[in-house]
């Protein structure tokens, strides 16, 4: 298989769909009702949105769920990884930086709703 093949990778599609789910205004969907409305490039691509949302909310782009915690315990480590999952103050500082430096605003992320505007 070579680059450019039209065959879709399902896990990539799921990640893309996850990005769309955290987007308040899906431009492709809106275009059906407002065909003359000009579409624009959103501040964050759909494929990256789920990772970014996790980064804002837990301070790590990677998922850490029960399965990961179980693996960690089996390996003789603390269940919770030594990341922002346990360092809540560090996460608060990160959120403050994201908020007050204007990054959240420019990305159009509404932290209360957990959604990107576009």
């Amino acid at each position, binding site marked *: 298989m070579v680059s450019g093949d039209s065959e879709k990778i399902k896990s990539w599609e799921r990640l893309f769909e996850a990005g769309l789910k955290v987007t308040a205004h899906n431009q492709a969907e809106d275009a059906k009702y407002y065909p003359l409305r000009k579409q624009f490039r959103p501040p964050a691509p759909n494929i990256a949105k789920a990772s970014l949302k996790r980064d804002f909310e837990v301070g790590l782009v990677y998922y850490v769920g029960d399965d990961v915690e179980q693996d960690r315990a089996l390996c003789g480590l603390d269940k919770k990884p030594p990341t922002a999952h346990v360092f809540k103050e560090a996460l608060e500082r990160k959120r*403050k*930086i994201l908020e007050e430096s204007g990054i959240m605003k420019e990305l159009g992320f509404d932290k209360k709703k957990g959604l990107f505007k576009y």
Partner: protein
Amino acid sequence: MPAKMPWAEKATFLVSRHLGIDFDYMKETVCCVRPGVWKPLNPDWWLTLTSQNLATAEKQNITIVDSCNGCYISHWECLQELKEDPEKLEMVNRNLEKAGLKVTLNVEVKHFLQVLYEDVGIEKIKENVVNPLNIRIMRHIGCHARKHDERFPRYFDEIMRATGAEIVDTPYDKTCCGLLLYFGDPNASVFNRIGVKMQTAKELDIDAYALICSGCYDQFERAVKIYKDEKGIVFETPIVHFSELLALSFGYKPEDFGMMYCRPIPPTKLMQKLKEGK
């Protein structure tokens, strides 16, 4: 690494303490932040967010040591850029100030390979090998470990050879895992990068891939699942971290660091081979 390969995290600690390195988790740390995601969005945002860890390390008077190439390159390049560009340093500190932090550039960032080779030394590593590994491995050093020419790849090879492992050279040793390409072109990322390496390992019948970067591991794991679930192709070469092999050569058992829980390909055959000493 803590989210993807805890067996490697445990092995890294075993090896480090075995060699007398004063090594511990960095407190109050956040994600590095993943440069492949943040840098293309806006380099200034990446600089600002990565600087949080630099400022925290400065405050704690510690050296940042990364095993993951992605974390290393994010911290190291951020520090270099701030050293070279006073305007960027000012911008970053303006943003960090809001969280009570400041970067004064009084911090060092090192790769784990660098600590092992430059600070501990290859002779001391060789002295600690009590269980030479009679296995054939394919190396995957990762692109970001090639930042400083061939220095880190040479450290990787010398340390791996010190464990007794035979490194099989292939034409794809320098091929990128494709992780950073995944968002933009998933087909090329999986089938033209990592897939080529996995196919080569299968043909050469090697015992394991040895890697050091957890970002590359993430891509291996993803590709193994995609091939299996979407193509019905099964790969059986286990993906092991450099520290796991080092720990085994120092006399630790797989159960000491949870090697048997390694995903996505259990290293059962490899552990059996090592046990039998074949």
